[in-house]
């Protein structure tokens, strides 16, 4: 136990004294977040509308007319669930079609909720569009009847920004980079320079050294996560509501997955020149398609399905749900299981492929 701790400490010292390592693991991801944080992706895209239809069949015509509007993305739900989504910032507006509404009834007025203060354009625009659709519906059912009016009421929502999406993604990315590039490059170099051979004439066991290397990197990873989340909350208005322990659990699981791949690569590569292309082949598709910088929801269906099982997708989605939505263990169980499965695969590969010489 003692020697493993001493080796971990020594590895940590070596890591910290490598300025470029600090640069890549801590400063670079932070810089990406800050730079992207200044880019505002706030143009009005589709209006995310939650519809609560409490009028049953009477509301069906109105609902289908709303769905036909191209600029509106409709989700249906109960009053509680939709208001909760609105609160989380997942909806721009929530329209309530109350019991007793009838297209031809005329007398019933409707209500929509939205964060008028934080999203003035989208809520106003949404209100106007909905009023027009409402008028059309009334007119189609019974021309000349008094029109139903829509009033939009303010509702305070958590106003998520791109940073909230990006930061957990970048965190996942840097966990992947540290695991794969960090381990693969440093072990190939340790092998090539005969440093490992020198260790094997001492009584330490290879396992002791691996444990120390893994422990050191997991420690760095925890520090890195703390710094990123800290800077995010303090300076970038990150809406962090997650459970830190759960974040750490996911981070460590992800770390193990990618460390396993890193050791596998170090096993099959004889030089740094061989590591680089292999590491890129593994990491680049995930960087592009695992929803790090942009949401996977815009990907074509089959690509989205394929990328949903990427380890980086599990990690990014898991971290994001916990950090931003405050998800509990049960809600990120698919991600935890996914990562655990990948971890088993990558560690098995590492054990098979890793060579000391």
């Amino acid at each position, binding site marked *: 136990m003692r020697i493993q701790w001493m080796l971990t400490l020594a590895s940590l*010292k070596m890591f910290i004294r*490598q300025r470029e390592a600090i640069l890549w693991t801590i400063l670079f991801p932070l810089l990406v977040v800050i730079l992207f944080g200044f880019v505002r992706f706030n143009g009005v895209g589709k209006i995310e509308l939650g519809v609560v239809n409490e009028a049953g069949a009477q509301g069906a015509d109105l609902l289908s007319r709303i769905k036909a509007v191209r600029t509106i993305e409709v989700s249906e739900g109960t009053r509680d669930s939709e208001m909760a989504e609105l609160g989380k910032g997942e909806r721009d507006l929530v329209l309530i079609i109350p019991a007793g509404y009838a297209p031809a009834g005329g007398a019933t007025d409707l209500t929509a909720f939205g964060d008028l203060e934080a999203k003035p354009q989208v809520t106003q625009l949404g209100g106007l569009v909905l009023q027009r659709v409402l008028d059309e519906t009334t007119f189609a059912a019974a021309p000349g009847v008094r029109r139903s009016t829509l009033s939009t009421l303010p509702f305070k929502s958590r106003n998520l920004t791109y940073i909230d999406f990006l930061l957990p993604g970048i965190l996942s990315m840097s966990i992947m980079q540290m695991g794969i590039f960090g381990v693969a490059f440093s072990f190939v170099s340790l092998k090539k320079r*005969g440093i490992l*051979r020198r260790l094997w*004439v001492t*009584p330490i066991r290879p396992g002791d050294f691996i444990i120390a290397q893994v422990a050191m990197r997991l420690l760095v990873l925890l520090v890195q996560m703390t710094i990123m989340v800290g800077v995010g909350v303090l300076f970038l208005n990150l809406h962090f509501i997650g459970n830190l322990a759960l974040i750490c659990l996911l981070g460590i699981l992800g770390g193990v997955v990618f460390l396993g791949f890193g050791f596998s690569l170090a096993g099959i590569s004889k030089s740094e020149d061989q590591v680089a292309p292999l590491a890129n082949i593994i990491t680049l598709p995930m960087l592009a398609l695992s929803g790090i910088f942009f949401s996977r929801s815009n990907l074509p269906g089959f690509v989205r399905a394929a990328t949903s099982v990427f380890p980086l997708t599990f990690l990014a989605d898991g971290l994001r749900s916990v950090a931003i939505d405050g998800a509990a263990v049960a809600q990120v169980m698919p991600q935890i299981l996914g990562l655990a499965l990948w971890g088993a695969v990558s560690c098995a590969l590492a054990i098979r492929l890793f060579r000391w010489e």
Partner: protein
Amino acid sequence: MKQSGDIVLEVRELVKRYGDTVAVDGVSFSVRAREIFGILGPNGAGKTTTLECIETLRPVDAGTIFLGGLNVRAQAQEVKRIIGVQLQSSSFFDKLSLSELLVLFGEMYGRHVDPLALLDEVELRDKSRSQVVQLSGGQKQRFSIAAALVNDPVVMFLDEPTTGLDPQARRHLWGVIKRIRSEGKTVVITTHYMDEAEELCDRVAIMDAGKIIAMAPPHEMIDALVAGGFRRERVERLASLEDVFLNLTGHTIRDE
């Protein structure tokens, strides 16, 4: 401590193959306590492989090796505790100072070492805060020896420690090796410098193509050759070019 003359290392019929190549082909020798034993031979003779088999770095194909009463093939872990090894062309971690490295290596044996005392042993005290990359060739080799001393080993293995060093640094290293022996250690050294073997070794084994083809103290080998009628073509001069070089440039080592 072992008495002088006790056998501390015994290699019998050692065989090591790499595929179809027989790198070490039935090598036998024994080394006595407090001896400096040299293994000489051209490149590819099997010197390094022989050492690596003894050092537990390579599995042996046939033969037995006993070191300090331990069977190397069966008790590798125990053997590692009592040997000190300087590998040919191996390096140390970057970013740790010499002192930190020695402390870390000591910990690998469960020992708390005094790094400065070890550095004194190889005259590197003033470099205790430097990193290995900042050392010259001779300093690196001396540090390597210091690292091999952390566990107060019974036998030290030095694999071509002076290759690539200038004459001053070589002579300096010889001094270090002699001192280590005088402190009670047994030293097994490989080299392809004959003057070095003659200067340092109590006995040498000459290897070629995986076999030991001669084994005796250096002066006996020379006497035997001369007795057999061998004469150098040119009459021995009273000085060599190396003497000239050292006379001109001095014995002081330059790498500090």
